[in-house]
């Protein structure tokens, strides 16, 4: 039990645990916010009550998720100060500022308009309400943008240098739009939308399986399926671009993700390991199942492209291998399964099987959707594990090492807070599941009418 005496390791475990828990909630609210804007837009345009009721049902799920997202997110900002003091003191000029921008621009906006969106139906008119929904959506996306700015900067710190132990920004735009940002943000934003599509699809699918409110949920299911048609393949494409980009900016990460030890010689391709078990001491894989040339193809889009191996990097600069290797494969596996489920759905839809009368017969299809919902969460977490573990042993890549960035705390203090987080997050998760389940069992209110000010004017004549 040596690790219980290691404050650095405990701080890392605590940050990993709290982030992994937190990341379960914002992606769904970011995606659902977009869906809510679409639903309210359709409601205002068509005045079809079905859209209004859809909005009310899905905004209820939004509220439950938002609550846990906020409650679990505040500890993250504070941990930079409590557990990662030297890191904060060194890079806070820029890094802290970005978090400040997030709070000021995005989070405050979202908090202020959220309650108008949820509880303001009787108090504001249709236009103002729609505006509030758009603001919530805009703010949620902006939040994601600033958080990714901060995180991408940790991956590819740019726009300045360290002077007298403090990071000084010389080029602001270069620091905000660090090389990692465009693809990382696109990848994450798509992940939010894709996860939402599959969660909405899964929830709807389960209702259809139960035979409850089939018409209502077939409608949202089709929305989800249509979104998946665009999102799932697009995500694969962006993921591939992202992989190539990381090959250029963080070659050690790619080598770790692929457990790739020796740089391939010019004129030969690097093999891709389907499965491997690395032995970092001996600098080789104990065993591996490999396909020739594929790694070169994936990273450079050239069968003989050069992919630097782990041995090119000093031992102390190499990331861990097992975790990124397997988390990456899990993420890609889920992504591929999503494309398959999406294609299957479209096939059945075109075959006329997704009607209120016949939908209930496609049990296997809806069950697959139900499985893809937890799968999407797994994929998001695995993506972040790959990204963050692959960044080690650096906090800000090439700038400040993890072992130099943590506060001088006793293992007892960190152990106590870590135990506290374990208990609190277990409770939180239990409550979340309980209340989410309750909302889902209750289902939508199919007789609900909007307040008078929001009802369509009766036709004249």
């Amino acid at each position, binding site marked *: 039990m040596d690790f219980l005496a290691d404050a650095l390791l405990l701080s890392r475990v605590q940050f990993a645990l709290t982030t992994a828990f937190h990341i379960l909630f914002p992606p769904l609210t970011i995606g659902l916010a977009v869906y809510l804007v679409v639903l309210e837009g359709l409601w205002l345009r068509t005045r079809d009550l079905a859209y209004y009721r859809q909005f009310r049902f899905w905004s209820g799920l939004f*509220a*439950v998720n938002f*609550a846990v997202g906020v*409650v*679990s997110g*505040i*500890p993250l*900002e*504070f941990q930079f*100060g*409590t*557990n*990662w*003091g*030297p*890191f*904060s*003191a060194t890079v*806070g*000029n*820029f*890094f*802290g*500022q*970005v*978090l*400040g*921008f997030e*709070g*000021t*621009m995005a*989070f*405050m*906006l979202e*908090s*202020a*308009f*959220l*309650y*108008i969106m949820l*509880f*303001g139906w*009787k108090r*504001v008119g249709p236009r103002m309400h729609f505006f509030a929904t758009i603001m919530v959506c805009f703010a949620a996306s902006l939040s994601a943008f600033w958080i990714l700015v901060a995180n991408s900067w940790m991956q590819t710190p740019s726009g300045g240098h360290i002077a007298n132990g*403090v990071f*000084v920004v010389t080029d*602001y735009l270069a620091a905000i739009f660090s090389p990692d940002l465009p693809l990382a943000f696109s990848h994450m934003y798509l992940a939010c939308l894709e996860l939402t599509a599959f969660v909405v699809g899964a929830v709807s699918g389960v209702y259809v399986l139960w035979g409850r409110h089939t018409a209502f949920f077939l409608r949202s299911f089709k929305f989800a399926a249509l979104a998946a048609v665009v999102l799932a393949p697009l995500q694969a494409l962006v993921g591939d671009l992202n992989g190539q980009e990381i090959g250029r900016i963080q070659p050690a990460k790619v080598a770790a993700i692929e457990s790739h030890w020796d740089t391939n010689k010019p004129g030969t391709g690097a093999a891709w390991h389907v499965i491997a078990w690395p032995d970092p001491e001996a600098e080789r894989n104990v065993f591996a199942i490999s396909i020739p040339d594929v790694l070169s193809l994936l990273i450079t889009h050239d069968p003989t492209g050069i992919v630097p191996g782990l041995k090119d990097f000093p031992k102390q600069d190499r990331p861990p291998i097992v975790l990124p290797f397997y988390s990456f494969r899990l993420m890609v596996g889920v992504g591929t399964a999503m494309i398959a489920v999406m294609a299957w759905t479209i096939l059945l839809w075109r075959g006329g099987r997704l009607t209120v009368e016949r939908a209930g017969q496609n049990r296997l299809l809806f069950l697959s959707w139900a499985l893809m919902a937890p799968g999407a969460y797994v994929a998001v977490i695995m993506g972040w594990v790959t990204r963050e573990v692959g960044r080690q042993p650096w906090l800000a890549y090439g700038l400040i090492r993890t072992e130099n960035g943590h506060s*001088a*705390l*006793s293992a007892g*203090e*960190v152990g106590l*807070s870590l135990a*506290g987080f374990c208990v*609190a997050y277990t409770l*939180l998760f239990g*409550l979340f599941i309980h*209340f989410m389940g*309750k909302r889902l069992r209750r289902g939508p209110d199919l007789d609900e009418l909007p*307040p008078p000010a929001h009802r369509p004017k009766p036709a004249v004549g």
Partner: protein
Amino acid sequence: MTLADVWYWILALLLWLYVFTDGFDLGVGILCLVEQNEPRRSVMIETVEGVWHANQTWLVMLGGVLFGAFPLVYGTVLAALYLPAGFLLFALMTRGMGIEYRPETDDPRFWSQVFGWGSVAVTVAHGLLLGAILQGMPFDGLRYLGGPLDWLAPFPILVAVTLLCLYPMFAAAWLVLKTEGELQDAARLWGIRFGSAAVACLVLLVGYIALDGSLGHLVGRPGQGGLSPLFVLLLVVAVLNAALYFRALGKGWEHRPLMYCAAMLAFVFLAFGLNLFPLIVPPAVTAASAAAPDDMLRVMLYVIGGLMPVVLFYNAYQYRVFRGKAVPGEEA
């Protein structure tokens, strides 16, 4: 005035906004432990449902601004106050769950208690953190020279007790504004009781500072006892506002008690702030020594300073949308 000074006062403004706004909704939580009637509690909680979140967000902003403008403070003070800072986080979670999940359940009584005790815990954490910083944290550069339990001392505990009276005082003023009938009458009574206790605590606190020479930096007399004239003057104005608060409660006015609370808090802040300035973490860390480089502060001032009016505007709009008396059972 240097840029670091400007940020010092922006920080003070944010802290005032946070303590005042989150103060009254935390106070509503504390009063939920005093009021035993569940339907009445529902109304009390409904008065803050639409705004508590934005109120709490001032803390997130405060954290971000402190992190960006004074990274050295952020990276050292929070680590030195690890245990109470952690306690604050758990307390915020508890309070948040209490208020967010209460409407989802069939057992509101239990969740009102969670909200209430969570609010008490947040308030105590506020007091301990604020008190620990105000009583002074010895630093040698980045190295904290104090112990991990320095916050467990009479002064921080006294600050915590003061806040436990002050927040319900604000909450009472808020409830007078937002409710009517019996509940409003009860709120007036709470306002007088907690208000009196808060003023008594404040006087006690000042007496303690005047007698304890090691706290002289708080009142413009570093290293010695007694009080500076400027401090006494501002504090008298603060107490005057408290007197106006009691009068407004007695006259049955609905808006003014809350206004006087805000003004009273502002003068308390000014009294301490003007005497402490330019110290950001007494006894030795000044705003200038802990600030980010000037060009960073300038960019931040343009961005956040430029946005502050917008943020204040839509916060005000939010209060306007949810204005008027709380209507029991309104959720749509």
